[in-house]
Each structure stands twice: as structure tokens, then as C-alpha cells.
């Protein structure tokens, strides 16, 4: 699952795949704006078949936070 999330991060935020294992935040990634954030959430929900809550989405502002939040839904 982690590999899948990393691929989504790389595709939507246009960061090199090897960088996705780090804990980058919204401030670290240049083009992580509201449009790409929406694309990111939509891609995660679509590809992993989950529906995130508004409160959880609000916490998903770093790679690690994304991984741990998604883990709650998938595991």
C-alpha cells in the first residue's frame, strides 16, 4: 500500500519517486497548492477505494500524515 501512496504522491505533486519516502510537508513542495491537494485526495480515495472524513483530510498536510491517516482506513 505504501508503494501505491508514494506513486500517487509522485504523480500528483510532481516530485521524484525517491523523495516520496521522506516526510515532506505542504510548505516543502512548491506546487502543493489547493488544486493539487484536491487532486491528491481524489486520487487517494479513487485508487485505494476509501472515503476520508473532513477532519482526517485536514490533517493530511505532510507525507507521513498522509501515510498514517490512510493506514487507518486500509488496515
Amino acid at each position: 500500500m505504501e508503494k501505491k501512496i508514494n506513486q500517487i504522491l509522485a504523480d500528483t505533486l510532481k516530485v521524484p519517486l525517491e523523495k516520496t519516502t521522506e516526510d515532506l510537508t505542504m510548505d516543502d513542495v512548491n506546487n502543493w497548492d489547493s488544486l493539487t491537494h484536491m487532486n491528491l485526495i481524489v486520487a487517494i480515495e479513487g485508487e485505494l477505494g476509501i472515503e476520508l472524513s473532513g477532519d482526517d483530510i485536514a490533517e493530511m498536510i505532510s507525507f507521513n500524515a498522509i501515510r498514517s491517516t490512510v493506514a487507518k482506513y486500509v488496515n
Partner: protein
Amino acid sequence: MDCNYQYNLGQLFDKVARENSDKTAINLFEGNDVTYNTVNVLSNKIANFLLSKSIGRNDVVAILNNKTAMSYSIMIACLKIGAVYTNLDPKSPIERFNKMVEICNPKLLFYYSDENNVMSEFKTDKFKSINYANPEFIKEVNVVGMDFPAYNREVTANTPAYIMFTSGSTGFPKGVVISHQNILNFIEWSRTIYNTTTDDVFTNINPMHFDNSVFDFYASLFTGASIVPVGENLTRNPRKLVEALNQVLPTIWFSVPSMLVYMLNMRALKETDLPTLRVVTYGGEGFPKNQLRKLWKYWGHSVRFVNVYGPTECTCICSSYDVSAKDIEKDELLPLGHMAPNFYGLVVNDDGKKVQLGEIGELYIGGPNVGIGYYNDIKKTEEFFIGNPGVESHKEIVYKSGDLVKQDPDTKMFLFCGRKDNQIKRMGYRMELEEIEHVINSIDFIKESAVVYIDNKKYSSKIIACLNSSDEDDNKIAEILRKYLPSYMLPDLYFYFRQLPKNQNGKIDRLKLKEELNQ
């Protein structure tokens, strides 16, 4: 200053501030709200400071605006002495920033330090730059006089108030110039349409370099209401934004529909949020009906929905339309509404002749919100700010909007039908696709390019670069474009062609290209 006749914005602010001196002007999330008196005194001091540096009427002051009491006060200080402020995008790529600076040729640049903003790369010896958050500047401002500047009487109503940059088809952004008179009219219009009172609390979600912020700033601080500055970090996280706004209880919200759609998609809204909200007004692009219906479910019973329309060249807003429950049921896009009172719209054909009611034509706009033109660009100004073709006796200026509209034969309301050129709106940001092409074509390994925008089931709101290139590496091209274009203008997709389709005149055939992409 005691005067019953306020013919410039400096005088109007001074009057409003004295009438509401202890009232909150700037409503901060972290507490310590700023009163009208504080903003008035601070802006007087900055105005006197600017005068001491020989800056006065018609001189341009550029601002990287971080929506603080200081940055708002700098804007008001400029208005008090007739200096023309321009809020530049702090995150603009350096090449584009340099172009804007070249066009507006400022005498001074106010900035704040932030490692992510353009100041890390910007260099000039043509004018001074001042960090307005620096204690040295605050010290300097504190030693000048705090009286309303007497110089203000020289600020006539036709003095430019601000320059707002927007995308240009020649590869250079265009600086739209708006006068004090334009805005004085706009303020009165907004007060009437929204029944603004001094108890109102306006959100300022729109970035200051974006045209919609004109409403946030002037409709609030020039009517005795208060403004809530919302930083970019918060807008990226909509649930946190709503939670923060729940603390300050806004009454009037203005944003692009994309922002509201974003909040809906991120499930950021709950039924109990923003209980004091009485108006949601939106504009800059169409609101997809399915999303509008969702928002209506939350707020339709208690909040007034107002759809507004207006080009940057006509002071932010020209027409408004109150949405009803009946409109929500229908599938078609909402009308632009009626033109503001004191305003008119002409729908004309390619020869500049009025079309019949119900026929599609280009919208020409006339009235006191029509701006002065494009800064340092007489040619473009004359091309778009022309005499009303129906009036031969004198020059009655109208703005050629490029928007294709038709008028409903019964209600006479305007309905949006598309664009005459290749201008698009995305996330409310207006851009000319040619500006993107211009940058792409300057890359040495690109042989030819066309940029199209498609918003359908296959491509949802996508900017697509169609390229004939000897190097087909998306990332490499995107990396180059990032130096010249803001993120909202970057293509989402890159497609490579051996040759781009041409029409009979040998020009790239965009329609055919779109057809090919849609197959």
C-alpha cells in the same frame, strides 16, 4: 480632515475611520484586533513617510502583501497621497516578476521576508526596497507626523489608485489601472447591493494580487465593516480555515467558486459552521451546478447567494444576480444578471453593431467602473477601451470585454456564452493561453506548440500543452516553465506531435487539435 465632499479614497477612509474609530477594522484570528483609529494613524504616518521620500501623486509603489495591518495600511497610505499601489504576487516566478516591475516602474517596493517569496531572487538598483516588518522601518515611520496629509487635496478623482496585473497574450502581463473615482462608485454599489453595515465582517480569502480582493478590501474597510485576513497556508487546508473562521464569525464571503468547490470536495463544511454568514458571493468563473446544489443544501435556507461578474478592467464587479431556489433546480449555468445601476452593457457583432435581443455577441461595458486602461501600454488601451460605436457625437468610453454573451429577451439579463479569444479562467485566475505558448516557444528544443484548455469528462479542467519537440521529457519542460509562469498557469498534461494540425492559412488549428485530443 473635515470635509463633506470625499472626492478621493484617502478622504473617504479618513471619514469612515473617524466615525468608527474604536471599532475593529481588521479582525485577526489570533486576537488583538486592530481598530479603525490604529489603521488611520498608521496609514497617516506611512503617507507622511512616503511624502518625505518624495513619493506622491502618480508614483507607483509595489507591495508584496501579506495581509497584515501594516500592509493594508501601506495601501491606504498610498491612496491618501495619490501614489499608485500595485500588489504583486509574492510567489511569482522571478522572470514574470521582473516583467511586471519593468511595466509599472515603481519608485519603491515594500516587501516582507519569507524564504519562499520572490525577494530571494529579486535584485535591482533602480529603486529602494523596504522590509515593512523590519523594526527599523517601524521606527522610521514612528518619527514622522501622524496628521492626515494636507497634500491629499491634490489627489483628484481621476488619479490612478492601483494597478492590477493580469495575463497578457503577448507574453507580458498587462497592468490594469483603476482610478479613485472608479472605486468610489464601486464602494457605493457594494454597500447598496449587500446592505453593508458596520457590523458586517468580510472574509479576505482572495490573494491581494488577485482582482477579487478589491471587493474584500474596499467593500469592508471603506464602509466601517471589518475584514478578516486569511493567509495562503490556511486556504490550502479548508477544514482548518472553517474552524478558524468559526472564531471570528464572518457575515460576507467572497471567493471564486473553485474555493467553495474545494471546500465541499474536502468535506470541510458542517451544518453548524459559520452561523452568522448572511451572504455568499462568488465570481470569476461559472459555478458547476451539481456543486452549487451541494452548497445550497448547507446554506440555502439562511444565506443569500449572489453570483457576480466583472472584468478586472471594470473594477472587479459589473453585474450581480441573486440566486433563487428555482435556479438551483435548473441545469443551466446561472445568468450574469443585470448590469449594476449606472452601468450598461452592449452586445455587438464583429462590426461593432448592436445585435438583436437573444443573439450572441461581444459584451462592451460602459459606466463609471470602466478603468483608465493598461499601464504603460497606450496601444493596448486604445484597442480595448474604445468609444461606444453607437455614439458618434462624443467619445463615450466602453471596455471591449471579449466575453461572448446574449441577453434574455424577457428578463434582459446577460447570459455568458464563451470567449472571443483564447483567454480562460481556472480557479478564477484569468489567463491567456498565448502567454503560456509564448514561454514554451522560447525553449530552444521546442519546434512548435499550442496550448489548449479542455474541461469535459475526459479532461477535467486541464491545460494541455501540445508540442512538436526534439526532447519529450515532461519534467524537463515543466522545470523550465516554472521559472516563468505561476503554478496556476502550468500545463497539466503534455502531448507530443510530429506536426500540429494547421488550417488553410497555415495557422495551428486549435479546434482540430481539441477534436483529436477528445477522441
